[in-house]
């Protein structure tokens, strides 16, 4: 009798596997830092982070490939576009109760995916968008050149390094911001908007800043995803990726920036390891299995360990 499935542990000891996991985990750390800022520190429920990631990545790709911009000019411009999208989405919905914002952002992410798929002239539709990363590849080669000869065949290593340096810088900056008087106002808003308002704080303006910064973080994550894949296609930006981010967020702990990286590493190790379970299933069904795992993990975490690994339990109970 053949076994129903087999697990080959060889993969877990290979450098390829861990570099792949490292790049994805770093990318999603940046992605989820944005969610942490919104959900953990401002109390606004952003369900559209994948939409901001898509807007950033596609704007960058379109500016480089269609408009002939330099990658280095396209990156800040695309970040600004993602931030503007955040403000536009936030303006009508952030004044309303928190669940309206959740609804609008999830709808927004779906529309962005839909546009990416259908505006073929701009985005390449399902064929995707290629050829935006030449300038990055030059940099990547330079970094590879600095590394010892034994590592030179790991062509993703430079990306891994740059992603995690970026993670470290952004996490540090966010922690500094959170300790500033600005961060104090955000925390007050999260606790009780009306109290903040009564003390003269412009709650809407702070929420818009929070969502704009989160959108920028989403866009930055989008660049790393794009460079990792060398290719932009709508499937890479489906709205459900936001919820991998939320699973990471809860796993690491709400209102804790360091927990994000930890949660992301655990999550992506698990998700990528599922690739090596030899199930007698078609590829699409294995892909589905990964999302079932995300769903179950999210439900169980939220129900039984809402504080995650590093958070405090009471952080989870956002007021309505």
């Amino acid at each position, binding site marked *: 009798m053949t076994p129903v499935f087999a697990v080959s542990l060889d993969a877990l000891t290979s450098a390829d596997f861990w570099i792949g996991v490292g790049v994805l985990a770093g990318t999603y750390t940046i992605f989820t830092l944005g969610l942490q800022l919104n959900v953990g520190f401002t109390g606004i429920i952003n369900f559209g982070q994948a939409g901001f990631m898509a807007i950033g990545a596609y704007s960058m790709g379109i500016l480089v490939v269609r408009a002939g911009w330099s990658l280095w000019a396209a990156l800040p411009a695309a970040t600004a576009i993602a931030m503007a999208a955040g403000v536009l989405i936030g303006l009508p919905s952030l004044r309303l*109760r928190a669940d*309206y914002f959740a*609804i609008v952002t999830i709808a927004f992410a779906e*529309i962005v995916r839909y546009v990416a798929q259908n505006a073929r002239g701009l985005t390449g539709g399902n064929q995707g968008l290629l050829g935006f990363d030449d300038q990055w590849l030059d940099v990547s080669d330079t970094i590879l050149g600095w590394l010892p000869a034994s590592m030179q065949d790991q062509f993703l290593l430079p990306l891994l390094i740059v992603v995690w340096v970026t993670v470290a810088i952004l996490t540090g900056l966010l922690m500094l911001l959170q300790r500033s008087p600005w961060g104090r106002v955000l925390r007050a808003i999260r606790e009780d908007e009306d109290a903040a308002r009564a003390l003269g704080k412009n709650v809407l303006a702070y929420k818009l800043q929070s969502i704009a910064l989160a959108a920028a973080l989403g866009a930055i994550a989008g660049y790393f995803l794009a460079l990792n894949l060398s290719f932009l296609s709508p499937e890479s930006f489906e709205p459900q990726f936001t919820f991998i981010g939320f699973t990471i967020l809860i796993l690491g702990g709400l209102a804790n920036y360091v927990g994000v990286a930890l949660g992301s590493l655990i999550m992506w190790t698990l998700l990528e390891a599922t690739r090596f379970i030899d199930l007698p299933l078609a590829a699409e069904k294995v892909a589905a299995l990964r999302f079932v795992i995300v769903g179950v993990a999210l439900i169980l975490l*939220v*129900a039984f360990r809402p504080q995650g690994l590093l958070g405090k339990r009471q952080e989870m109970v956002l007021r309505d």
Partner: protein
Amino acid sequence: MAGAADTAVEPAPRDEPRGAAPALAGLSGGRGPLLVTVAIVAAIALVLIVAYGIHDVAQRGVNGLVSGSYFALGAVGLTLVYGTLRLVNFAHGDLLTFGAYMAFLANVTWGVPIVLATLFAVVATAALGVLSERVMWRPMRGRGAGMLQLLLMTLGLAFVIRYGIQMIWGTFPRRLEVDVTDSISFLGLRIGRTELIVVIVGFVVLLAVGLMLRRTSLGRQMRALSDDMGLAEVTGIDTDRVVIATWIFAAGLAGLAGVLYTAAIGTMTPNLGFFLLLSLFAAVILGGIGNAFGALAGGLLLGLAQEWSTLVIDPRWKVAVGFGILILVLFVRPQGLFGRKERTL
């Protein structure tokens, strides 16, 4: 409610309608908003007729009623669950998917006739709704779970349903055994035979739902609970019974909507409910979140808006019309067409 913002929108309290007014007059904002809405729709129709001719407008209007009927059926459950439980159920779209695949299971795999298969799908989806209430929502409410916790759990459930279906049936488009080619002509308007059945079933069920909410004590209790759960409890409504009834209702209608959608469109994929969710939310917010009659009207209006939009823009973008309406409503009238603005502190 703990310190809602000054601009927060509360689901409007529903007035008890008097007399034998038509079902839609039960919209809580009174007759005014209804008349204004009808006037706006008529004005838009008139402009379109002048620009594109009566035939095209009527034909797309018919198409709009087809999609409007399953939007409305999907939206009413979403809004009722919100109203009674204050739960924005992001898994609601996937209940539609579940219904469609249950019908596929019965109709194609087991060879059951479509009518029975549809009934099976409705019952199975209702059962799933009740199961989710018992296993997830009731225990979580008992523990005093926060809004974020509940929202995330609905998303987790959505993933489990959607991708569970994908694990079993794959992403390959599936069909029910209905004839989607045969069509009927009437006054120069064409409508698919199956589509006609969809519209008729949809409208009959919608009417029944409307009557049930207005006339039966269960319906009134649902709407009372939707106003204020604590209040309903002290005034002696058996909330547990009403909550279960709401789930049976909401999930059963979602299952039916999923089957009708598949019948009208021709195929189903595991994503169908998630794709529809955006339109369902647009319908719910258009009608005023928590307002059952509003959701019915919102669904129909959204169907019309999407189909009429294809006169003006590429049909590819009609999905985006839903999103446009969602944003527009939030800017202009966040309480929805038929909601009443309440500010609380």
